[in-house]
């Protein structure tokens, strides 16, 4: 086999060294760093973008939380406000009812007093009418007039 012929070694080794030196220093060393640099740049770009996206995501989450907090707070405030107004109006209604009641009772009592007075008066007048009638009857019958 020609592979084992020592005469074939020197020129193959010489050309291998020459070709490999050109390959390494003239081709690979010139072109490969561009590719690896581009791969690194792409990676760093992707990393930065992912970081930016994460920051934006955190910001959005925080904004959502703030919004929800605000909503809950305003809802609580509105509830409180509503409760206060209701209590106020309830108290006002109760006071109005009470005042009206007092007024009505007073009016009722006054009316009672008036009715009693009128009744008394009526009874008194009935008595005097009855005595007059009795005096007149006696006078007619007897001709004597009694003083009432």
């Amino acid at each position, binding site marked *: 086999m020609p592979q084992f012929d020592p005469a074939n070694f020197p020129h193959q080794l010489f050309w291998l060294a020459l070709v490999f030196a050109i390959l390494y220093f003239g081709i*690979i060393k010139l072109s490969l760093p561009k590719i690896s640099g581009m791969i690194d740049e792409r990676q760093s770009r992707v990393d930065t973008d992912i970081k930016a996206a994460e920051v934006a995501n955190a910001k959005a989450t925080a904004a959502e939380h703030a919004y929800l907090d605000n909503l809950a707070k305003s809802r609580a405030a509105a509830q409180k406000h509503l409760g206060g107004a209701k209590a106020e109006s309830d108290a006002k209604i109760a006071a109005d009812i009470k005042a009206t009641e007092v007024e009505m009772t007073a009016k009722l009592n006054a009316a009672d007093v008036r009715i009693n007075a009128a009744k008394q008066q009526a009874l008194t007048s009935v008595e005097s009418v009855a005595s007059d009638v009795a005096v007149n009857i006696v006078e007619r019958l007897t001709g004597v007039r009694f003083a009432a």
Partner: protein
Amino acid sequence: MEQFEIHKLAPMSALNHDISFTNSSLAMVVALVAVAVFMFGGAMSPKLIPGRWQAAVEFVHDFVAGMLKDSVGPEGRRYVPLVFALFIFTLACNLLGLLPFLGIFTPTSHIAVTLGMAMLVFAVVLVVGFARHGLHFFSLFVPEGAPVVLLPLLVVIEIVSFLSRPFTLAIRLFANMTAGHVLLKVFAGFVVGLGAAGGFLSLSSILPFAVINGFLVPLELLIAVVQAYVFALLTAIYLNDAVNLH
């Protein structure tokens, strides 16, 4: 074996050494040009969003870089150009050597070429190892947690296995390439020989051997890629020894 024969295309010599430009040199130069076209076409003006060509170069780069990261760790980044060069040169030589009709020679089917590359790897491992660890690099030969009684034997075994690395690395690639080409040649030879025999013999033999050869071609393509991968992977593993010691 004439497919492994070396023909001098331009005889040259320097310092009493034969450095003729041969068909082997020509095949290496063709591989070099192919790699240059591939690399410069895909990497000269890289875009953030890669085109097809750039994506292909990036794929090979990520393949080699991932291999080094897995076996050496983050320090492996420094050796990406070297392993990349070894991988793509071996791959180009292996694949171009399989092209039919062009009569292209396969440089990686010669042990001089594979041994040259393996020696380069061995030298780089030694330089990196001694540069990083100094004489402490010799602790590579002392397996951790081994019983003291066995230590002399183990150290000898470790040294022998370390020194045989360039040869196993070289012979693995050379033997795979040579065997594959011989196999294809033998089966193609059966088809031609039996076809010439004529009659029943050719009718009953051409088809099975041609079919087998048809399956052998993709197998050899696979071997061409796998052996380039194995060469690069073993380089990465040996570099790991030099960088991290065990």
